[in-house]
């Protein structure tokens, strides 16, 4: 139990647990600057130094100065002392904490030979169960008797009219609710052999509470998209629970959920068009998108990254009032979330230049992004967004590239009439900002295409 008395050890473990179990990587982003175990470690070193100094100045010790140096290094224990294994932890300062969970989570890759041997063994075991009969050419002529026995003519009985069991079953089994999801049946992972599959625990969050006790275990082929996973979940559920009617698959979305089925509303639905193999989570909640809209508009997200887009209140309002029925909310919010992720990450290296502490002024944001021009060139710019203004500052890297140098822009937030995401492709996002110019009260439309440094796709 001694371990649990150690603050540093506990902190490190809690922190690692958060980072390791969070496949979205958000925990890592949030906690990247605040590794308390490191802080404690540093404090411990300082404390040691202090105690050592004290001991050196203590009069009347029999030990020599040299001895003290060596011994004290080990003997002095401080309240901040970590456990010995902390120093040789797997954290490599060169890599930082970013790649760590990707490298160490999961199983260690086995060697090709041992994998091959395993496969071979499995195949042998399988083969042992299969009786093999090789064709043998007939050795001897069969006697007439033998021919009569094996190939004798049979009197043909006129088949009598029979009632079919299938016909009866069909009459008893009229319309089946799972038929509307039939096209998704082919994504069934349990029905495929040799194809990579993925298994999910899906909580039917959109159903009344009594149906939510147990998750549905769903196995799909790995290249099924999220929308296929939704369809297959509906298919499977309606087979097992034909009495519970489900709606159209287009009304549903899949969200990250906890082990107990609690949906994490802070995250958007998984992108419908992404293959499910891309996502590392295994617990998902099926939600009704119609209900989701109302939930999302509530300011649940109190994280700093979300507030980046709070300075575009008109955009979010218009986004919902202007809903295009063919477009799903998931796609949009997902893109935004991805953009935020990418932007936030890009910021890490760049650093906030805001004078206020992060927690105090969440609305002030500064991004280093690429501004894409019509001429297929791009230039780095600094996009600053505060409560009061929006500012685009070109970052000059090549002085001679006058042809692609963007102009400096500064607009008061009060003059921004509209801001809308026009298109989002990969890491490129096109925005339209409508500005009312103060000088002549004219409306000016600015279209910008920004590109952000994209994160590596996560497991």
């Amino acid at each position, binding site marked *: 139990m001694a371990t649990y008395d150690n603050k540093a050890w506990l902190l490190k473990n809690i922190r690692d647990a958060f980072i390791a179990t969070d496949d979205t990587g958000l925990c890592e982003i949030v906690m990247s600057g605040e590794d308390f175990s490191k802080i404690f470690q540093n404090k411990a070193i300082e404390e040691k130094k202090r105690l050592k100094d004290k001991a050196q100045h203590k009069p009347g010790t029999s030990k020599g100065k040299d001895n003290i140096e060596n011994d004290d290094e080990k003997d002095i224990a401080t309240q901040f002392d970590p456990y010995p294994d902390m120093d040789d932890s797997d954290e490599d300062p060169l890599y930082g904490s970013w790649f760590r969970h990707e490298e160490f989570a999961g199983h260690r890759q086995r060697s090709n030979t041992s994998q091959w041997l395993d496969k071979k063994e499995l195949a042998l075991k399988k083969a042992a169960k299969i009786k093999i009969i090789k064709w043998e050419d007939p050795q001897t002529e069969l006697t007439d008797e033998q021919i009569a026995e094996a190939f004798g003519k049979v009197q*043909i009985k006129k088949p009598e009219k029979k009632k079919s069991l299938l016909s009866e079953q069909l009459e008893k089994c009229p319309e089946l609710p799972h038929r509307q999801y039939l096209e998704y049946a082919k994504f069934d992972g349990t029905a*495929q052999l040799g194809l990579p599959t993925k298994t999910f625990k899906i909580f039917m969050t959109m159903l009344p509470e009594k149906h939510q006790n147990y998750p549905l275990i769903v196995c799909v082929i790995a290249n099924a998209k999220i929308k296929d996973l939704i369809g297959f979940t509906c298919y499977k559920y309606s087979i097992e629970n034909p009495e519970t009617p489900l709606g159209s698959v287009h009304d549903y979305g899949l969200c990250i959920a906890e082990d107990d089925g609690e949906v994490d509303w802070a995250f958007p639905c998984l992108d419908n068009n992404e293959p499910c193999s891309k996502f590392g989570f295994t617990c998902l909640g099926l939600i009704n998108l119609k209900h989701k809209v109302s939930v999302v508009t509530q300011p649940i997200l109190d994280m700093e990254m979300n507030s980046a887009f709070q300075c575009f209140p008109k955009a979010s309002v218009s986004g919902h009032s202007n809903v295009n029925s063919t477009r799903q909310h998931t796609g949009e919010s997902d893109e935004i979330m991805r953009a935020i992720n990418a932007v936030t990450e890009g910021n890490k290296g760049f650093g906030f230049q805001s004078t206020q502490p992060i927690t105090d002024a969440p609305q002030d944001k500064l991004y280093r992004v690429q501004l894409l021009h019509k001429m297929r060139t791009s230039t780095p710019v600094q996009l600053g967004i505060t409560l009061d203004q929006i500012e685009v500052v070109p970052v000059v890297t090549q002085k001679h590239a006058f042809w692609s140098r963007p102009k400096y822009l500064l607009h008061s937030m009060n003059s921004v009439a509209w801001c809308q995401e026009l298109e989002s492709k990969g890491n490129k996002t096109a925005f339209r900002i409508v500005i009312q110019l103060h000088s002549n009260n004219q409306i000016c439309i600015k279209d910008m295409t920004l590109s952000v440094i994209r994160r590596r796709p996560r497991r």
Partner: protein
Amino acid sequence: MTMSGDAPSTGAGGAHVALVTGGYDHTIKLWQAHSGVCLRTMQHPDSQVNDLKINPSGQMVAACGYQHIRMYDLASANPDPVINYEGVSKNVSRVGFQENGQWMYSGGEDCTARIWDLRAGREFQCQRIFQVPAPVNAAALHPDQSQIMVGGQSGIIHIWDLKTDHNEQLIPEAEASIQDIAIDPEGKLMAAVNNKGNCYIWSLGGSPPRPVPRKHLQAHKKYALRCKFSLDSTMLVTTSGDCSAKVWRTKDWTLMRELRHDAQRWVWDAAFTLDSRYLFTGSSDSYARLWNLEKGTLEREYCGHQKPITALAFRDQAV
């Protein structure tokens, strides 16, 4: 009801209704025919499935493909074959059983038809081989169990008499390959379809049953793939690469139903229910379908295969 690989409680046993499909995705699927739910998937490695037949006891299904005939246990949850018949150098295109389950016959692209002895512990083996000049596409056993009709690439139908080993030949159309042969359960009619979409019908009435040409149907505009008689011999179905299956009345050889669906592609195989009221079809769009022949409506669809369905077998149960 279960969809996973567990042994299903209904539909799989020998005494039950069983629908089996196989195709290009190297799997064989067992379906609960009335609900359309896939009960089990079996592995058919390294080859497409050319033909499927359920054995007389209803316990096993034989699947033939490249160089193999594999036998799968329908009653267990085993996804692998239990018996593997090998020693054929090329594709085995057709397989079938003698009605008592004593032997099995096959026809293949190695230009042979074969009899495989299925009996164990007999003092003699009844293995037989019948060589023809061209790859075999079709083989059908006469219901009197003493003749096998073998047809193939050359367009010749060989009537192989198992008792005497003699054979007679029929050439319905020059320069057209025989794709399938069917004999009605009463043993009175024989039908063959070819790659031009034509269907030829003979009557086998006399004794010895000599085939007498009866009818020529221009059944399809394209490649015909299969033909089968209904159990009551009142209907003949022909399937084709023209994305349809056509049901003909044997009484007057008029077209009774043309079964088409927007999504349906080549129709590779078909099977009637015991009461001849319904028909199963398997298609290149990876769906199997169940049609109501009286109404001409689509009753069920079976979705689960990743690639075209090229063979299906159905075993009904009398009530």
